């Protein structure tokens, strides 16, 4: 079957045959390990700490690399295979590096009806990155995401964990980009975004 638009491998959590990105940072900080160990006692079963621990590892190590998964397995003392399985299931665990401002645009149906796809295309031009890439200066990365739960005020987007659910138009988009540039948006991996 000819498919004119095969899904972009970069937009999938992990495409078949794709390797997990590696990183120079292979160890988690002591404080993050301690935080994870503390978490484990909060749940009826330490396995339940896997998702929160991956969030901590993600902000500590920049993204969820193979080493990050191994570090989580070590800190929680659970099988590494369990952590690989979980980390690759969920899209919010980034398996490849992201920019200081990771911009996620909702292009699902309600936002698309109000111009979400245009916003996404425009951002691709403005930021000069394609989905799955990081801009050369390390500032930006971009992704198309599914419904963010702001359909009534779409199109909407999220920068790191900050939501812009405000009927975005071009002027609004400029304001978001400006806010990032002038340091008014928490950067990826900053402590405020932990856990």
């Amino acid at each position, binding site marked *: *079957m*000819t*498919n*004119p*638009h095969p*899904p972009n491998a970069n937009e*999938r959590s992990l495409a078949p045959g794709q390797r997990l990105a590696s990183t120079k940072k292979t160890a988690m900080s002591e404080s993050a390990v301690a935080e994870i160990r503390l978490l484990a006692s*909060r*749940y*009826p*079963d330490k*396995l*339940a*700490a*896997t*998702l*929160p621990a*991956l*969030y901590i590892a993600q902000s500590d190590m920049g993204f969820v690399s193979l080493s990050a998964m191994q570090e989580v397995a070590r800190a929680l003392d659970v099988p590494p295979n*369990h952590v690989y*399985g*979980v980390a690759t*299931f*969920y*899209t*919010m*665990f980034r398996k490849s590096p992201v920019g200081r401002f990771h911009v996620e645009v909702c*292009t*699902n*149906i*309600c936002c*698309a*009806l*109000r111009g979400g*796809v*245009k916003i*996404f*295309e425009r951002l691709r031009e403005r930021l000069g990155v394609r989905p799955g890439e990081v801009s050369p200066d390390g500032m930006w990365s971009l992704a*198309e*995401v*599914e*419904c*963010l*739960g*702001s*359909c*009534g*005020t*779409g199109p909407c987007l*999220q920068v790191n*964990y900050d*939501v812009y*659910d*405000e*009927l975005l138009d071009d002027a609004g988009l400029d304001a978001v980009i400006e806010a990032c540039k002038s340091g008014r948006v928490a950067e990826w991996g900053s402590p*405020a*975004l932990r*856990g």
Partner: protein
Amino acid sequence: MTQNSNIRTKPDKHRYTFEGFGSEKHPNFLLRGAGDLNNWPLRVYEGTHEGYQALRKALQMAPGDVIGEVKASGLRGRGGAGFLTGLKWSFLPQDTPDKKYTRYLAANADEGEPGTFKDRAILEYNPHQLIEGMIIAAWAMQCRKGFIYFRGEFKWLIDKLDAAIKEARDAGYLGQNILGSGLDFDLDTYRGAGAYVCGEETALLNSLEGRRGEPRQKPPFPAVKGAYGQPTNVNNVETLANVPVIMRIGASAYASIGVKNNSGTRLFGISGHVKNPGLFELPMGTPLRYLVETIGGGTLSGLPVKAIIPGGASAPILTPDNLDTPMDFDSLHSAGSEGGSGGVIVMDESTCMVQAALRAMRFFAHESCGQCTPCREGCHWAEMILSRIEYGQGRRGDLELLESLVSRIMGHTLCPLGDAACWPLESIIKKFRREFEAHIEQGKCPAHSESVLVSA
């Protein structure tokens, strides 16, 4: 854990009111103070919204009587399926002299269904109403512990709920021997990480246990074997937020709102091509037309309405001749659609239905958990076929191929995600078949030179 700095201070642009909202005809039970970011603390909830009075009343009653009251109110689950809440609560096994259970309660705050943005309003403005509802539910079912499972993107709301839970604990509403009733109950928040399927209750339980969010085979149902292998009840946030209302005004008063077998009010989110999108609380059974034309103000472009999805992206599509359908579970079902999650998506005449079908299918193909073959392969194939139709490479027989896929997915999957993907597709093909055929015959999209709804 709690960092107050992450609690939202940025104004929220959602619309929550309309003319006459808050009157006897259009009571406001779930959106009190919505839009005012200072509405959430315990002080306001107790001071101006009769907060935790319903809990005091419930704790005076026997747990079984609380379940009876919820049954009598006729409350149906707001998460999608519309199952009777009181009945669901009665499925949890009770302790016997030789067998004691640890029962759990989970609130479903995954809110992933496209078109749905209702639970977030309760969480943002009335978090204590959910907490109070959960404590009453815990009393009724004698649960030991409750979890609120959030979608990962709702980070700021998790911080808010953590703060609200702390307030409730400090005030003695959570913890040991709550208000002298003998009930020990506490709450915790849990953050998902971006998977629509985790809204399905058994997938939610897997995720809550720190696993991949794959739905479980049923039976056993969560009421028998849920979180950590223990009996668990899962309810939607809005369902639980209705519980204090029922306790406060009484089951019969609650049952008198709405229509037969569909009592109370419901949160409807209206989005898409309407002039005034927003979230509105309306009695069950309000005609769709009132929502689209009176409150929504018709279409933004002034073009006629072409199609309406009345219950979130997985509900079958309706056309303008269905505008007089009452918005309740049974009437929408009779009209060939579903009440679903209450997200109403409006499309005007300019919309290309092939694009709409493709965008919806792309979503389901992306969100399929991959466990069962009909859903994993079927949704992906459907996406590819729709994609070639939209981009001018459709073939004769593609529509029949899609229909044969639909019949092979529907009813053959482990969880309802496969069905959810098929409902909109099947109904769009049925109602807009000409448009699909025109794409195939002309070898292009007749309406648009570029895709407005799908990125390349």
